[in-house]
Every structure is written in C-alpha cells, then in structure tokens.
C-alpha cells in the first residue's frame, strides 16, 4: 500500500507520462481511499492549466515589436 508521499510522487509523474500498469493501479487504489491525495491530483491539474494560461496572462512571451527589435540588433551586430 502506498503512503501519501509515494502517491503524490506518482500523481505528479502521471501528469507527464503514462505510468506503468502496476504503479497506476497502486495509485488509483490509493486515490479511492484518500481524499487528500485526490485533492492534490485536482490541484495538479489546476496548476497545469494556470501554467498554460500564464504564457498569455502573465505575458511570458516577447511581443512582436520586441522580437523584431532584437532581431534587428542581432543582424546589425553580425553584419557590423
């Protein structure tokens, strides 16, 4: 039987890849019985959504103007 630390490790790993069959069964079994880890799993999904949205909501990408400006500066440097 997994403890919560182990279950949370597997739940995190499951966000990134398909777990081996046995590990997945152990995790699902734990989640059936453990409300805390079920909540943690929900939080993991919430976090992923937030991270995806942060790219636009927190402006984690260069604007077209900035990109162009930098591209020009690089070109000048290479030519000069």
């Amino acid at each position, binding site marked *: 039987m997994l*403890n919560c*630390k*182990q279950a949370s490790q597997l739940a995190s790993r499951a966000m990134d890849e398909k777990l081996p069959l046995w590990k997945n069964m152990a995790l699902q079994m734990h989640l059936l019985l453990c409300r805390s*880890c079920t909540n943690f799993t929900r939080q993991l999904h919430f976090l992923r959504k937030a991270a995806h949205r942060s790219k636009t909501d927190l402006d984690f990408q260069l604007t077209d103007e900035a990109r162009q400006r930098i591209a020009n*500066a*690089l070109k000048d440097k290479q030519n000069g």
Partner: protein
Amino acid sequence: MIEGNNDLNIQTWLEEHGDYLFSYALLRVKDTHLAEDLVQETLLAAITAKNTFSNQSTIRTWLIGILKHKLVDQFRRQGREVAIGDLIDQDEGDNLDNFFNANGRWTDTPDTFNNPDLAFQQKEFWKVFQQCLTGLKPKQVEVFLAKEIHGMSNEDICKNFALSQTNVWVIMHRTRLSLIKCLKINWID
C-alpha cells in the same frame, strides 16, 4: 535542436529560446522592458562569445548561463547584492519534510480551491502566481518554465538541463508541491 558549432544560427536562437529567456528574465527583474533588453544583451553577448560554446552543453543551457551573468550585472547596477551562486542550484537532496511526515503522510492535508476557473479571471491570482514562481529554487524555475509554460518535452528537458528522467520527476514533484502550497497560502479564493 541545434547542436554543434557548425549549426550556430543566431536568428534561430531568438526563435527557439527568446520567449524562454524572456520569461526567465521577467521573473527575476519584474519589468518587461528591462527583461527584453536583457534578452537582447544576452544574445548579443552570445554572438561575441560563440566560439566559446562547447558541445558539452546545449545552446539553451549556455544562453541561460549568459543571461544569469547579465542579471547579476543588472542587480549590481540596482545596488542589489546578488551573487551568481544565488541563481545556481545548491544541492537540495530529496528532502520533502516540509510536506510529509516520517510516515509519508501529509503535514498539511491538501484541499482544493472553491472555484478554480474564476481564479484565472482575477488579476490578484496572476500576481500571486508570479510571486510563487519567483520563490522557486533556481533549477525548479528553469525546468518548470521550460516544461509547463513553454511546452518542452521531457526528453528535451533531460537533454537541455543534463538531467536524468528520475531527476525530472523529483524536480517536478517538488516544484508542484511548492507552487500549490504557495498558492494555497497566498491566494484566497
């Protein structure tokens, strides 16, 4: 993935790594224009230094290394004492004592947010989210940004940051625990 000196194509650096470098800088300096300037300075310095690029590292790791030095210069100009070591990970080991007791049970039992979808519409939430990202350890920020925000595959993460698959699991687990805890403490929904 560009590797090897023969393939050093500077314009693709901007395409492939510009957003990543920018988001990393933004988290540190919290000023859009300053972050843009730092990306530009980093890439310009990279052109000058491109002969020093060694195949031992990947372009991204190399560029991040240059950016960190630029950040330290920037902090110094602002009169902030930040050493390059502060931007590089100290070994954290596998210690999860902040989250679990010796029996592997939660020290603070996780609950959920009442209305997660509403969170995204609130400015305050994004402020807290950004603060929580800023509070992560150096390696955690680097990997989390690359993976969860810029969509890099696990395979590329391993290659770029010279990490094993297990390292990535451990870092991501710890990062997620930290972020969730930080959000829960600082954001009241």
